[in-house]
């Protein structure tokens, strides 16, 4: 029925928001920088995947892995060249830098891949799963399962690996991390790598469903709202915030006049800031990363 159908699309769209939000939060928690180019990293990831899969004709799985690797590298390079020198600079300066980076990435994508919308070829594109009256596109299913898989891996990484725990340590107390000999600057590079990788993953998941063009990165603004709704310091909060934004958007699309759906993320954000300014997850902020 309709309601379930809406929930399915809301959740799958919400996963994409959530993944981008995750990237915001990862970088913010570690470095206290807000990276407004996070959505554009997602866009870039989608285009890199288009290059491997559509243009070079690689199998989807290999194309995905190659994309993640390339984008992780992009994250490292960005950190090394642009953001490491900005450590300790005023927040607005860093913010401007990330906004500028967004412009550059969009122009770059337009120049290299053109401005026409295109779709990433996925082997599962167009197939559907029927459960009773419910029709679920495989694309949506893959988005949800992919998000669950990635979040599980991230959880295990942060919870149980030496490097993951060191990332938490560096986020929780930078100076103490230095004092115990954790190479904090290298950790920051890895955080950027991880965050670009997560964004690219979101891009690859979403690219078979919605056409991609150089401007799709603007969903990053909605994802930013989602991150704030989730508490902006909490990884689970980012995903939940994303889901909430995705769901609210679907329902707004159904029950409100056209055009309102696109506003709903920000309305949600405003409401959230009024009733619970610290965000959904503030109380357990940073608990489990």
């Amino acid at each position, binding site marked *: 029925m309709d309601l379930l159908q809406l929930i399915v699309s809301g959740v799958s769209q919400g996963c994409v928001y959530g993944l981008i939000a995750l990237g915001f939060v990862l970088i913010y928690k570690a470095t206290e920088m807000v990276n407004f180019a996070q959505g554009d990293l997602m866009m870039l990831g989608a285009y890199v995947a288009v290059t491997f899969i559509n243009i070079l004709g690689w199998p989807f799985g290999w194309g995905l892995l190659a994309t993640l690797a390339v984008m992780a590298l992009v994250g490292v390079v960005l950190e090394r060249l642009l953001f490491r020198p900005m450590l300790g600079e005023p927040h607005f300066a860093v913010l401007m830098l990330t906004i500028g980076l967004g412009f550059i990435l969009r122009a770059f994508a337009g120049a290299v891949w053109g401005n026409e919308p295109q779709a990433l070829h996925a082997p599962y594109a167009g197939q559907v799963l029927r459960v009773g009256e419910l029709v679920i596109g495989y694309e949506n299913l893959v988005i949800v399962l992919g998000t669950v898989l990635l979040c599980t891996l991230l959880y295990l990484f942060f919870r149980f690996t030496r490097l993951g725990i060191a990332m938490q340590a560096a986020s929780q107390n930078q*100076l103490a991390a*230095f004092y*115990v000999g*954790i190479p904090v600057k290298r950790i920051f590079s890895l955080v950027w790598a991880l965050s670009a990788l997560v964004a690219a993953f979101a891009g690859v998941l979403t690219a078979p469903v919605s056409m991609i063009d150089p401007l799709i990165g603007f969903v990053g603004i909605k994802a930013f709202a989602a991150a704030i709704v989730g508490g902006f310091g909490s990884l689970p909060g980012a995903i939940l915030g994303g889901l909430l934004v995705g769901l609210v958007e679907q329902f707004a699309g159904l029950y409100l006049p056209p055009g309102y759906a696109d506003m709903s993320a920000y309305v949600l954000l405003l409401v959230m800031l009024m009733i619970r300014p610290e965000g959904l997850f503030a109380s357990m902020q940073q608990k489990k990363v």
Partner: protein
Amino acid sequence: MAALLELTNIETYYGPIMAIRGVSLQVEAGRIVSLLGANGAGKTTVLKTISGAMDPQKGTVRFDGREIQTRDPDWVARLGIAHVPEGREVFPFLNVEENLQMGAFSRRDASIAADIELVYEYFPVLKGLRKQAAQVLSGGQQQMLAIGRALMLRPKLMLLDEPSLGLSPKLIQEIATIITRLNKEQNVTILLVEQNARMALDIGDFGYVMEMGRIVMEDECERLRNATDIQEFYLGMKDEGVRGRRRWKQRKTWR
């Protein structure tokens, strides 16, 4: 014999403010050296300059024969200097054991697990709290954790910044005993910053006294204990000292 640590004419600034005005000091291997001074004297800044959290404008820091004054703190730590900062600075959301593991982050050898047990031998309370988040520990327990975490580096030199701060006299005594034991049993050379002059002079071998960013007195602790100035200014004046204005704390201003 060359000293393990040697500072020569160090000058360190906070922006335009000159906090350290030409400090020279030596720490010989195997000793406990105390650095005393009222608050604002610059003791913490000296330690930060040694561990690389701040770079001096002038002067050199020599450790184990190498100049390290321009290095980052993680590099200095890997060289064998463990800094136990003012205010403990444990990783609040990691549990006790994870905090200790992070102390050994730079190590690759097989005896890390054994060293965690060693820390638990020195601080038995921590063993019972091993799965607790560090933030729920009491001040004294956090201080023990911070020292234990520093020990996990297997350092040659440990910098301790006011470990007695905010602790009960009984706990202070306990910490003092542990510091002496670490020095004797684990061969850790110690540079101890304290406002609690009584404790610092009791366990120290050699002492420096700072005022306004300068060293104003240095001698064997034995003799400092008997110096009239010290008795008047530090021992007579209650151990708490004048801790009025303090702490626009050391958030991430490590540079």
